[in-house]
């Protein structure tokens, strides 16, 4: 407890005169066709962009993915898109998802400038590990949920408290070995993003 | 009445590269400036200041103000010395009206020609392939040009003065504004890195086909020339004033 008091006291003593907190009112980039720009951004981050008119088409698109057709263990948290080959609710420990090959998850908003999708923890079911432990990730987003930049994304996000949420942009990657870009580090090796509508 | 300009010739230019001082003088006179060279000048104090020795730099800063305070404008063929006066004298002397006056009226040569004199025409020729070395103080302190790090519309006052010369070919470097490695006492205190930096610049210019390397700071050029000569490289090194002194500016 006294550590806390010491630190806060030291910080207060050291504080400079107050400076204002700016409101970002700057002109942020805008896209003529945000959905199209979002899809381009997804491709740029080594994701696989797909655009479909409705949920049924999304289902067909997901089932048509090579990663899906090859998979035995799949999980879908998006009703009507793909299917779960296991009952996620009855999985006891997140480690038990270790062999999961494809996870289908929905998110909103989706950010055009960088291909990121916000996934609130409440959409991941019992084990949030599902989105990172699966070999392949499929993100389903609605076209109306596409925003231009992160500023607008934060305007829309309601942070669940207590809770968890994550922006995911493309498959996991690293360039730690001689700056050579390698797709697939510890998270998903591929990330298909299906924009519906 | 044309403003009277005090010509500041940095110590190492005065002693080792007087031709750069003369070229600067010729250019200023050619555009109609009334120029004086106050004889009592010596050094702006930058080497001391950059070594952290503020006490040793302060008297020189005071000298500079008292010598050049009488002029309407002060012009120097040196981005680093001008940056010292404009931006760093304040750290030595605090906020003072006499400092503010002199600092705001002290310019690097190309800066003065473009921003103050408004030179828009350069008639002359220089039929060579030229690599422009963008010295760091001039670039990132005086903003003689847009640095490659910043995002915005490109501009470069030195290039602006060179580009119209007939026959000149400004080569494109791989690293447009990487530091040459002089850095004052850095050149000797960190000799290895300094020389590797300089050699890398020379290699860049060579690869781009430069026959002449130019820039607005003699210190950088001195370092690059020293390395080039020691290695027997054929590239010539010339201060921008030497390239412009034969031209007609208006």
């Amino acid at each position, binding site marked *: 407890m006294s550590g806390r008091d010491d630190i806060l006291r030291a910080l207060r003593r050291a504080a400079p005169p107050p400076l204002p907190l700016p409101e970002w009112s700057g002109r942020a980039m805008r896209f003529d066709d945000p959905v199209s720009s979002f899809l381009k951004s997804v491709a740029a981050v080594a994701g696989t962009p797909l655009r479909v008119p409705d949920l049924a088409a999304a289902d067909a698109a997901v089932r048509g993915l090579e990663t899906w057709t090859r998979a035995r263990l799949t999980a879908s948290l998006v009703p009507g898109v793909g299917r779960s080959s296991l009952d996620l609710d009855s999985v006891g420990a997140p480690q038990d998802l270790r062999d999961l090959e494809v996870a289908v998850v929905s998110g909103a908003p989706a950010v055009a400038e960088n291909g990121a999708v916000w996934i609130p923890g409440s959409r991941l079911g019992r084990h949030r590990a599902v989105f990172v432990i699966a070999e392949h990730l499929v993100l389903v987003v609605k076209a109306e949920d596409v925003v231009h930049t992160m500023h607008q994304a934060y305007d829309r996000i309601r942070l669940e408290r207590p809770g968890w949420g994550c922006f995911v942009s493309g498959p996991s990657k690293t360039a730690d*070995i001689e*700056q050579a870009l390698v797709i697939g580090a510890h998270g998903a090796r591929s990330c298909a993003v299906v924009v519906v509508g | 009445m044309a403003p009277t300009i005090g010509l500041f010739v940095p110590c190492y230019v005065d002693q080792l590269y007087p031709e750069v001082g003369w070229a600067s003088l010729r250019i200023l006179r050619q555009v109609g400036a009334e120029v004086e*060279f106050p004889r009592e000048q010596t050094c702006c104090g930058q080497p001391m200041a950059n070594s952290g020795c503020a006490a040793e730099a302060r008297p020189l800063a005071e000298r500079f103000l008292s010598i050049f305070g009488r002029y309407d404008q002060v012009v120097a063929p040196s981005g680093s010395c001008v940056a010292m006066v404009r931006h760093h004298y304040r750290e030595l002397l605090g906020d003072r009206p006499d400092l503010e006056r002199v600092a705001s009226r002290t310019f690097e040569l190309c800066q003065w020609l473009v921003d103050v004199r408004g030179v828009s025409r350069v008639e002359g020729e220089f039929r060579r392939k030229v690599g422009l070395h963008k010295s760091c103080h001039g670039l990132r302190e005086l903003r003689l040009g847009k640095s490659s*790090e910043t995002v915005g519309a490109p501009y470069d006052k030195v290039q602006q003065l060179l580009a119209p010369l007939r026959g000149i070919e400004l080569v494109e470097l791989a690293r447009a504004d990487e530091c040459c490695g002089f850095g004052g006492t850095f050149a000797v*205190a960190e000799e290895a890195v300094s020389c590797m930096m300089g050699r890398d610049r020379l290699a860049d210019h060579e690869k781009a086909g430069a026959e002449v390397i130019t820039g607005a700071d003699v210190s950088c050029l001195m370092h690059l020339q020293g390395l080039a000569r020691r290695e027997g490289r054929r590239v010539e090194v010339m201060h921008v004033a030497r390239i412009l002194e034969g031209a007609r500016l208006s």
Partner: protein
Amino acid sequence: MSAGLPVPPGQHARAAARFVANEVRAHRHDAAGWHLRSNRDRGAGSVPEWEALREAASAIKAHTLSRLADYLEEFERNARQNGIQVHWARDGAEHNAIVHGILAGHGVARVVKSKSMLTEECGLNPYLEARGVEVTDTDLGERIVQLLGEPPSHIVVPAIHRTKEEIGELFQRRLGTPAGLTDPTRLTEAARHHLRQKFLSAQAGITGVNFAIAETGGVVVVTNEGNADMGTSLPPLHVACMGVEKVIPRARDLGVLLRVLARSATGQPCSVYATHFHGPLRGGEMHVVVVDNGRSAILARDAFRRSLSCIRCGACLNTCPVYRRSGGYSYGATIPGPIGSVLSALRDPRAHADLPFASSLCGSCSDVCPVRIDLHHELLAFRRELSGRGLVPLGKRLTMKLLSLVMRSPRLYALAGRAARFLLRRAPWALRLGPGAAWARQRALPSGPAASFRELWDRQASAEKGGLP
């Protein structure tokens, strides 16, 4: 041996000379850093409002620093409401003890850790290992240097000083990969399998904190590899370590900060994962350890306070022509490069008196910094600080005193100039001795003109006088 070993503090020039002497390695390291810088340029250049974003990021951080205690209290209040336990550590020793205490309280013997320069600074790994806790660094670069038994040499790309051949050889020894395997994709695959076992068997996950949100009581951790997420979604216990300066006022401020972070680090528009933790896993626990360790002292310094704005993007390292050619180890500090030089010198000016001089003051760092820290000016200001404390080497001080004396007298100055020119013309060998040697070893000396500018001016003036009727 070929990578150069970490050196004790205070030896930058010497260590850098050794680094430069291995030309192949030095050029490769330089090219690696420049590659990151080029990618950064492309990323930044794709945002027309980039400079306005930098200004906003700078202002958010500056404002926060002016109210740090308030924001930390707000953060703690809200974090507690989320079920997060908040601890406070005055220094590295307290931090280590707290983290260990949490782990020991749960009987944890195996921990996975994602990148945290703070834990490097506090020496957490050896502390835990000495107490029987296995710590696996899970960022690929960090795992590589961990297996090599060396510290990271870059804050974002920890193994930038190592070749794929060296990593292949390491993986063969420690992970059983085939001899001669150097392909980065296959090496990464091997690391994925190896680290996956560690994630699955981990009993706790330690992470750093990129941003702590005061308004909502959450912490944000950013990675490309997903290692922080694997490490915090599998084991039930999460310990997040943060410096006091990591707090930001509101979630919406991330709109600015996340837009500049990844672009500055690697040029990507954003990192792959930006995870916002607002509570523990169901049935688990989450702890945040807030650490001072000298930061309040830096906050008190007008000239250096802004260095606390650093968001650890690494852009200043990548752009620094000196860092690229001397390697991280030459700095003898946890964080190398421009920001590391400022922070280390602040922490221990005596030990790191060399670092503010390990710079040509080119200013490139300041121009890339996403939060507009005036890095090169802070380095210059620190030189004055060192001089004031008597920590500038005697030789340099005496030289400057002598030079200053000479420069204060036009007559002495002219005399000295004439003498120097004479020597350059007639006896340049004399100038190659002593201090001149450091110039003349690799560079030709300037020629000594017969007359200085002022001598020529005097002649012209007297000739004109003489020419007047």
